[in-house]
């Protein structure tokens, strides 16, 4: 195992940020921690990277305890924080040189590892980091996190606020780094990025909802999921929410994803209900859930569990 996290608790002024978090990341794995803002992702990453102490629980990295061996661990981990930790008044090259020097190495020594990422921004190496576009800052920050050849790369929301094209490219880069043997732990609020990871942990309000391969999380979804569309999407979602047997109804692109309390003849019943409500061009079929459907279902179960005490 590259990383073992055991019963981690952390609270800030009475607010439970992490509640009994336990999971492991295997060596060479690309592991995604997926959840919205405020779920506890950054807090957990700061504990793993020795920047924050947990209230309870243990973390070990490559067999080293984060509390006792923090100095050694810092040599083994590359951390890219959510807010880019670049010096805006230094140039691209100066930033990289600074990080290399801090870790007692040089750009030349590990150029091979960063080449794939860094070559894209190298033409701008004399530009101040503060003058770079978002996508370029992201690549520079990644180069800086890699320059001391870490065994584990920890990336806190590297794709937040980044457009769909740059996100795709960023994930391609991560896959190539993984092939070089680097273990990668990455967090994201984008549910669709789950399928790009070997395994994922879904996290919400400090609680880990599930840890599994993306395909297994989907396989564990137990409800019958219907995709419904009609000629008026806004009216459709409202009407479906008001139907007595509806369990949940949410917009998903051009259709509504519907789950019902009762599975019996659900398609027939929904069609009849919508016709009575005056909808036209009604399409309805049973579909396979995505990670977002699973996340929403698990969120709901967690809330019910907490309410029931």
């Amino acid at each position: 195992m590259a990383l073992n996290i055991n019963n981690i608790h952390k609270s800030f002024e009475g607010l439970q940020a992490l509640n009994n978090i336990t999971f492991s990341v295997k060596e060479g794995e690309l592991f995604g921690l997926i959840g919205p803002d405020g779920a506890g992702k950054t807090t957990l990453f700061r504990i793993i990277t020795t920047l924050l102490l947990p209230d309870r629980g243990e973390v070990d990295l490559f067999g080293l305890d984060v509390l006792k061996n923090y100095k050694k661990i810092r040599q083994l981990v590359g951390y890219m924080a959510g807010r880019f930790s670049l010096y805006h008044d230094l140039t691209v090259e100066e930033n990289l040189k600074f990080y290399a020097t801090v870790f007692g190495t040089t750009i030349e020594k590990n150029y091979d590892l960063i080449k794939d990422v860094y070559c894209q921004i190298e033409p701008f190496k004399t530009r101040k980091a503060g003058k770079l576009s978002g996508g370029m800052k992201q690549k520079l920050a990644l180069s800086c996190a890699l320059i001391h050849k870490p065994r584990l790369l920890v990336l806190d929301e590297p794709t937040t606020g980044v457009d769909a094209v740059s996100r795709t490219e960023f994930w391609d880069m991560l896959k190539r780094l993984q092939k070089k043997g680097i273990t990668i732990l990455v967090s994201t609020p984008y549910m669709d990025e789950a399928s790009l990871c070997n395994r994922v942990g879904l996290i919400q309000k400090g609680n880990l909802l599930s840890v599994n391969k993306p395909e297994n999380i989907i396989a564990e979804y137990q409800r019958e999921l219907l995709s419904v569309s009609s000629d008026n999407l806004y009216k459709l979602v409202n009407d479906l929410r008001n139907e007595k047997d509806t369990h949940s109804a949410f917009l998903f692109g051009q259709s509504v994803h519907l789950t019902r309390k009762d599975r019996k003849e659900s398609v027939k019943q929904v069609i009849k209900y919508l016709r009575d409500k005056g909808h036209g061009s009604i399409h309805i079929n049973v579909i396979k859930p995505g990670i977002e459907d699973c996340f929403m279902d698990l969120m709901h179960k967690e809330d019910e569990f907490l309410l029931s005490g």
Partner: protein
Amino acid sequence: MSEQKETIITVRNLVKKFGNFKANDNLNFEVFKGEIFGFLGANGAGKTTTIKILCGLWAPTSGEIKVAGFDIYNQTEQIKRNIGYMSQKFSLYEDITVFENIRLFGGIYGLSRHEIAHRAADLMHRLDLEHSRDKLISSLPLGWRQKLAFSVAILHNPKLVFLDEPTGGVDPVTRRKFWDQIYEAADRGITVFVTTHYMDEAEYCDRVSIMVDGRIADLDTPSALKGKYGVKNMNEVFLKIARIKPDQNN
């Protein structure tokens, strides 16, 4: 949308240069009253520049632009009174209370004391925030903040509201609830001009424009765009149109 399409934004030959760099390179488009208009593009494509111009904050280098019936060059104050604006990065002041935020923005939008009191009460009732009236924004969950921020952005009943990446980082349920609010506003006749990086949200728009390198590469309804590029969803449409050499410039 109504049968008679009334125009709320008209952009003709909009050019904005920074030195030699054309951030907006001859844009032409219209936005109709009551529609949800998706304004998409890669980072650095020039979206923020256009939004700043349409909000009356920056003057264009050239072009004819009307927003809510007012001219972008010499009627910027009227434009500001007739629009609302919200983004994920900036929306509410975190170190003052719910009510203080409503009062502040009401004042900025030129509402009378009486109107502010009335609308604040109505708004807090609708959002179920009455018990949180005197709580600091920083103490509210993100989902509530977002709901409130949107309601505050349309407190003065503007003709048009600009939403700049309003849903970044929130959980999937909250994100969808936010879109319920957007639909509601559009249903009341408020035109919604929205940017997002979630491509499923592009599907909720009546029409979508996709900007690449300072130009509008395409503009149509989501279903027409999907048909034109022969793909299943807006994510693929976006990738087909916007996949250019990375970071040529910003």
